[in-house]
């Protein structure tokens, strides 16, 4: 998933502020984790990994209209602290090129940061369980993207930008505004009816939306898994230290 392709003007202000606030908090945590590290080493590594992510995003997959993200690989190489800052750098640059809203940078960084963190965590544990780095990296990628897509759906549901939820809210508002029931009993019936509608339409719509996202996403996850697996195998043969889960340079 890596970033929400949600433009400015859709996400409600409290979510925008929460996204920015949490991102600032996690950047502080990451900076604290990197405090004792040589900054002259850390900065170029974050920079090149950010550049690699941007580079991968610029590589279109023919016919499918999908682009790679490499956030999981970034987590595998850099660890969560450096990886989170790299996710922020990438999202800032993307937002400036109108690829994802400027106000959505916080939420996008959280999604990217989640992928980086889980990528690092899963790679660290799966690398020992699997003989082939390809399998470990590919499985880690699919699992991470599945989780981050679910997180994205959570944001869509929570912010009510899902068409079904929004439809319900408008209906509900219109009911409340225009119906003007004769008595409390009638009002209660309208409320109940609207609530029932919310349960069925809103839930059904989110389910339909989720079905589309998961089925379309599955193809993207497979592509990303194949590419990240191939990269992991290639790097493990050439520079095994770069992807060594026991490497001390990760924070």
């Amino acid at each position, binding site marked *: 998933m890596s970033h929400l392709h*949600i*433009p*400015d*003007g*859709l996400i409600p202000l409290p979510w925008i502020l929460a996204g920015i606030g949490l991102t600032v908090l996690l950047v502080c945590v990451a*900076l604290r984790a990197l405090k004792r590290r040589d*900054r*002259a*080493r*850390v*900065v*170029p*590594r*974050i*920079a*090149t990994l*950010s*550049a*690699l992510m*941007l*580079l991968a*995003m*610029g*590589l279109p*997959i023919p016919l499918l209209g999908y682009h790679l993200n490499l956030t999981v*690989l970034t987590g595998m*190489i850099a660890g969560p602290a450096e990886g989170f*800052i*790299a996710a922020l*750098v*990438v999202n*800032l*640059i*993307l*937002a*400036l*090129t*109108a*690829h994802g*809203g*400027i*106000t959505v940078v916080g939420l996008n960084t959280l999604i990217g940061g989640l992928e980086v963190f889980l990528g690092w965590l899963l790679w660290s544990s799966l690398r020992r369980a699997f003989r082939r780095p390809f399998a470990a990296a590919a499985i880690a990628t699919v699992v991470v993207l599945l989780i981050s897509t679910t997180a994205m759906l959570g944001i869509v549901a929570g912010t009510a930008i*899902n*068409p*079904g939820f*929004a*439809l319900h809210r*408008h*209906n509900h508002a219109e009911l409340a505004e225009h119906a003007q029931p004769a008595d409390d009993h009638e009002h209660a019936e309208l409320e109940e009816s609207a609530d029932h509608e919310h349960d069925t339409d809103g839930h059904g*719509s989110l389910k339909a939306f989720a079905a589309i996202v998961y089925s379309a996403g599955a193809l993207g996850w497979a*592509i990303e898994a*194949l*590419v*990240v697996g*191939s*990269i992991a195998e290639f*790097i493990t043969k*050439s*520079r095994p230290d*770069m992807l060594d889960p026991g490497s001390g340079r990760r924070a």
Partner: protein
Amino acid sequence: MDVQFIDELAANGRTPLHDALPWAKIAASAALLAASIAARTPSAAAAAAAAVVMFASASRNQLRHAVAMALYPVFFAGLFALGWIRSNPLFALTVVIRAFSAGLVAATLITTTPFVDVFAAISRVMPAIVSDALFMAYRSFFILVDELQDLLRAVRLRGGAGRSLTEQLRTYGQVLGVVILHSADMTERMYRVMIVRGYSQRIESAREWPPPRPLDYLLIAYAMTVLGLVLALR
């Protein structure tokens, strides 16, 4: 997203917007972005969009490139707006117009202001690691793009990436693997250069901006007026 092309537009363009000071353009863009998002009705959103188009048209023949970039968020806004079309078409229209205006603001800023200048402004409010990484990521991107293009050319000259999609993706994975290995070497070189040049925990921008001119004040006043009007319309 073609960062190279955007960089070329920003660095080599000669328009009134290119001449304006980066901080003035950033302040004006922030106000216009706020105006675009704050618009609640289609008429207010359209008025904000018209104001943004006027602002962007100061970039003259580059306007079409900025508009093309702004269509990307419009596409995604359109997907969300589809759900509102029957129940509340006016709201759906507002959402799409807002996305266009916001996208055009960002596109105009970045096609008329070099990334380095934008980063220099951002670095004043960002931790040193983040702002330094922004500068270096941007530079690294261009080096790695050249390298990737050379490698892809070599793959094509040797018969292509493969017949099946799986084969192609694995080849692209290995190509990216080579780029990543080279980027590790590049990281090491950058580290040495930073040590030799005495990296003092922050890359200082050497850019000195001239004093503001009437055009800079005009841009900010224009954007603030638009924001004020949109807020008044709410």
